[in-house]
Structure formats: C-alpha cells, structure tokens
C-alpha cells in the first residue's frame, strides 16, 4: 500500500510495439505510468504488463545488471532497462525501442541467434598449449598475467555494443564488439594456446576489419569491458598474421 501511495508522479512511456501476427511494421504505443524515485525502466515496463497491457513483451531476469537480458534503446541510447532509472529521465516522455541493428521478434524482444553463433565461433574456452593430466597439477597464472585479460571476462552478453556499432548495422556478418571481447579474454590468457585458430576466424571483412574504431561500443558497455580495445589490438595481430603467415611452422606457400 505504502509503495502505491509513494507513486504520486506519472511518466509517459512511448514503447515501440511489434506484434508479428497483426502489425505489418512496428508502431509506438503510449503509456502513462505512476512512478517512485527508485523505479527503473524495467519496473515501469513490468508495471505496464501487470496493470495496462499483458501482451507487452520484453526480456529480463536478474534486475541487477548482471544477466544482460534487458538491453533496449532508451531515449535512443543502448541501455539496460534495470540499470536506467525513471527519475533521471523524468519529466520528459521516455522512448523505449528494441535494440538497434537486430531483427525484432516481438515488441522489445530481438533475434539473438546470430550473436550466439558468433560467440560459439571464436572457441570460447581455454585450449591448453600442451595437454596436462590432473596429477601434473593446475595451470598457474600470476596476477599480472590475469590483469592482461580479466576485464574482457566481465562481458554479460547484453549486446548493447552491437546496438551501438554502425559497422554492425551496415554489415550484420561483422563479428562485432561483444564476441571480440570474449575472443580477447581467451587469446589474452597466458594458459591458452588457441590463438591461431581464433586469428583464422577474425581475418577478413567479417572479422576485425569491418571495425573503423568508432568506439561507441566501449562507451555504452555497462561493465566497462572496452570491446573497442579488444577489436583494435587484434587488427595488429591479424595484420602480422597475414604478413608473417609463411614463416609459421608447417606453413604451406
């Protein structure tokens, strides 16, 4: 009761709706939502779903910026709905759209299949340099060796960086910032020996070379993963790999 009493202010939300069975294209719907100062955009959407329109579809899970499910365009910026608060946007009307650069499945839900395939394609696991048995003990790592890749392991696959990337918008086959951050997480790991397999994956236009260092991917990242750094340092490696490929052991002319 007290929670309802506290919600004396109202915010206008313009939500892009797309119902594939009835809509030929997405259209904006307007909702008036009572809000309190601690209300996130995600809670506002849940309030619409609970009290105004149960058909409104959106993804969410953890409500604390760790699962990466509720990424959407809020006032044109790629944002996590759980991490964006109405009080910071009020009193102006708030525009909510599905993540840019992705096909819309329904309302705020986008297609993620291609992104998952890209993640799978970069060998997202440690490939040991030499196989070791359990009796041989664990693979050791110094704090400095860990610092070299640790921040890239913070990615939550929210895809905000893809929505921020105009080169992904122009070329959907571009491997993109998120998958490259994960690639660097493994390539930068001192215990890993899979660098060559991953370098082969990112050569060419659909690999690192679609990136033009726009850099907005790193600005919108809610976890400060800095995918722009992951991509651009691998351009150097990819270029070296191209020019020095004949010198590799086992290389064929």
């Amino acid at each position: 009761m007290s929670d309802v009493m506290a919600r004396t202010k109202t915010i206008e939300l313009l939500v892009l709706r797309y119902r594939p069975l009835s809509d030929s294209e997405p259209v904006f719907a307007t909702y008036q939502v009572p809000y309190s100062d601690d209300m996130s955009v995600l809670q506002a959407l849940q309030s619409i779903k609970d009290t105004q329109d149960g058909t409104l579809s959106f993804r969410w899970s953890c409500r604390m910026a760790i699962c990466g499910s509720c990424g959407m365009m809020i006032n044109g910026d790629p944002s996590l709905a759980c991490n964006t608060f109405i009080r910071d946007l009020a009193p102006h009307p708030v525009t909510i759209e599905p993540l840019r650069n992705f096909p819309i499945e329904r309302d705020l839900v986008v297609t993620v299949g291609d992104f998952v395939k890209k993640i799978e394609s970069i060998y997202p696991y440690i490939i040991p340099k030499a196989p070791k048995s359990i009796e041989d003990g664990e693979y050791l790592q110094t704090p400095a060796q860990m610092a070299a890749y640790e921040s890239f392991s913070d990615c939550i696959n929210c895809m905000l960086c893809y929505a921020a990337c105009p080169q992904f918008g122009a070329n959907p086959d571009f491997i993109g910032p998120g998958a490259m951050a994960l690639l660097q997480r493994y390539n930068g790991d001192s215990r890993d020996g899979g660098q060559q397999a991953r370098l082969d994956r990112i050569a060419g236009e659909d690999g690192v070379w679609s990136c033009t260092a726009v850099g907005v991917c790193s600005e919108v990242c809610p976890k400060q993963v800095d995918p722009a750094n992951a991509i651009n340092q691998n351009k150097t490696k990819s270029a070296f790999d191209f020019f020095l490929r004949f010198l590799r052991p086992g290389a064929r002319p």
Partner: protein
Amino acid sequence: MSEHRPFHRAQPRDWWAHKPYLGYTLRELTGLGVALYGGILLAGLVCLSRGAEAFDSYRRFLASPLSLLIHLLLLAVMLWHVVTWFQTMPKTMPKLILGGRHVPQQRLTVLGVLLAFVCSAVLIAAVVAVGGLS
C-alpha cells in the same frame, strides 16, 4: 501457428551525422585536413624543384591572407587530430600492465599529447634557431 516473422529495421544512411557518432565523424574528417596540409607542403617541394621563380610565387601564396586563413583552420584541425589520435591510440594496443597494475588509457592519452606538444615545441625552436643562424 508460428509468430516468427522478424522485422528488420534498416540503419539510417545519415547515422554518421548524429550523436553519438558525430565525434567519430569529425575525428575522421580531420584526416582530410592532414592530407590537405601534406598537399600544401608537397606543392612547395614541387615549386622548389621548378626553380627560384616558382618557389617565390609559392612563398607569396603562403603570405597571402587566404593562405593564412587556411593555415589557421588547418592548425585547429591538426590540434583536434592530435588529441583524438592519442585518444584512439590506447584502444589499438594491448593493455599496458606495469608492476602488475593496469595503466589507465587516459594517462596514455595525456602522455601522448604532451609528447606531441614537446616535440612540436622542440621542432619550432630548432627551426627558429637555424633561421637565426643562416
């Protein structure tokens, strides 16, 4: 019945002209300014190879109000190019770990810009000194 009928929204063709991409667009455009200045220097070299008369007319062009205006504009473009170049530089290199700690990118940018200005100052001082001696 399947509802799977994904809707594809096309990216606006003028994405580069709007926030947050405007900074990127301006940064890339400064490259044209750098190329233009390189062209001006190259024109001087060509005039020099063609003889004294050609080089004198090149120098007269340099002293003209139009040329001074162009150079003032190009100086601003060049300064912006230097700053944004060093802002991008840390993104293109592996994380710098010193003493087990990650060196912040902003520090690399500040150091790079400072280095560029010190080098420019030394170059200007050298040119002035050589000009004074000859």
